[in-house]
């Protein structure tokens, strides 16, 4: 697993990739903070059903990093697409074949790759959180949001908590994306199935069936990103999503270890 982890890091941590990622982080932080801050409304005007930032919550100690959590929530589908791409593209390119000739233990290969992806994701999220906090701080006063409570221990605790929530949310999407990629083994099909399911399909079902957010993986991950919703509490969302994640991981491993990796 360590070999697969190191190999994947060598592939991901290239100068060009890092520069590209840094640019995306900066642009997302500035634009995302601007959108979230300008969308903030007084709490009295916000419905409990919606997911809208309030001026009051953004003015609290965790307000700076709450902006980051809101920005991250916009990227759910993108995160899913990236992870599907990372896992499925190697089937289309034939590079799993090349990798398996060096690391025939498929469980170790998969685990090492996932660990490397999540390590990089964790790094990106840490930088993105810091960048978003700075961008939000610079723009907040223009939106009438006080940032006086954004420093100090309480703010740091909130930052760690927000970071952990987004990391859990990303991990959930990553494992679900891996399962879809391992089952369909085609980038195009994996993207179509995944986006259709986690995007419109779950939300359409949610509109017709109020209990849907308690059962569907995409909606559960959304609920985690929002620290729970009126329809599903944080604890229930975490537990149910964890079950989905474990099942998805097992399905991925079984599918990858039991099937041939050839074009024959």
């Amino acid at each position: 697993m360590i070999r697969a982890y190191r190999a994947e890091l060598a592939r991901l941590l290239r100068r060009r990739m890092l520069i590209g990622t840094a640019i995306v982080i900066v642009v997302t932080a500035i634009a995302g903070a601007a959108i979230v801050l300008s969308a903030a409304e007084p709490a009295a005007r916000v419905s409990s059903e919606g997911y809208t930032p309030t001026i009051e919550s953004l003015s609290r100690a965790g307000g700076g990093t709450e902006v980051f959590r809101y920005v991250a929530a916009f990227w759910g589908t993108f995160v899913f697409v990236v992870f599907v791409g990372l896992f499925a593209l190697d089937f289309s390119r034939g590079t799993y074949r090349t990798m398996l000739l060096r690391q025939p233990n498929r469980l170790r290969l998969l685990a090492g790759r996932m660990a490397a992806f999540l390590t990089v994701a964790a790094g990106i999220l840490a930088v993105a959180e810091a960048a978003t906090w700075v961008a939000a701080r610079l723009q907040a006063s223009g939106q009438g949001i006080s940032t006086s409570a954004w420093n100090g221990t309480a703010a740091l605790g909130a930052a760690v908590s927000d970071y952990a929530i987004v990391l859990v949310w990303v991990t959930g999407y990553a494992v679900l994306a891996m399962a879809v990629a391992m089952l369909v083994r085609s980038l195009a099909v994996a993207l179509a199935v995944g986006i259709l399911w986690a995007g419109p399909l779950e939300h359409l079902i949610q509109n017709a069936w109020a209990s849907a957010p308690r059962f569907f993986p995409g909606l559960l991950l959304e609920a985690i990103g929002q620290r729970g919703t009126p329809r599903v509490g944080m604890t229930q969302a975490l537990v149910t999503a964890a079950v989905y994640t474990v099942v998805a991981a097992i399905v991925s491993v079984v599918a990858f270890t039991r099937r041939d990796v050839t074009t024959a």
Partner: protein
Amino acid sequence: MLTVSGLTKRYGDRLAVDHLDLRIPRGVVAGFIGPNGAGKTTTMAMLVGLARPTAGDGTILGVPIRDTARALRRVGALLEGPAMWPSLTARQNLVVLARLGGQDEDRIAAVLELVGLADRADDKFGKFSLGMKQRLGIAAALLGDPELLILDEPTNGLDPAGISDMRELLVRIAGDDRTVLVSSHLLNELEQICDWLVIIDGGRLLYSGPAREFGAATDPEVVLRPVERAALEGLSELVSARGLEPRTTDGALLVPVGGNDALALAGSLNGAAATGGIVLSEVRVQRPTLEAAYLDMLEGVHR
């Protein structure tokens, strides 16, 4: 070195490899031959753990093929074409693969040099020609300094110059006391480098043994070409009178050697022709090429 027995692979109703038994001794360059769909790639994929055998077993370098992790430590392979990451350079691709295989990254420069890509090491794989990709694939296979190299159609899609380069590369690689199993459709190329042959058709073994013995059962022929084409008939009568059964083709007479010494027979027939007043412009012993012997074998199987 490499043995398999009863190796079988079934995809639904289709039997891709059918109870294959074969043995490849250490230190040979073995050509793996068969028509498209004969089961060559599937057999190779089972040997390196990419495909799971339906039945049968085998060993690579004394290690059971089902214990792939241990077996592959001393094996390098290139199957179904070179697949690498297009946005990475040749060197970066090899770094990733060396780390994945737990292999010495210091060997990267040496293998790039060996395959003639040292000066293109920092070019992206995606910009490489097919020949260069094949060579980089072989470089990757050589990273672990393997004792056994398994190459599936390394000349696929190459132009004549590329094929010639690849032949020279394989000769160089085999010269390092490695065992090489290489599949190819280019039988005349294999004929020049292989000292062992494995021939399969429809997933079944047709031949496995020394290359020099393959086709040995097919007689060599003495080719006699008279200067005057009109003398062909007289020459044929003269040869037939000796109890031989010649056949005519393209202005020449082909005489099967049978149990005779080929060179002695050629000399004797040349002398007889001269005595009979027939001047020959060509006298030579023709041995069947690998391709001719292979096609003969397939024809026999499908007849």
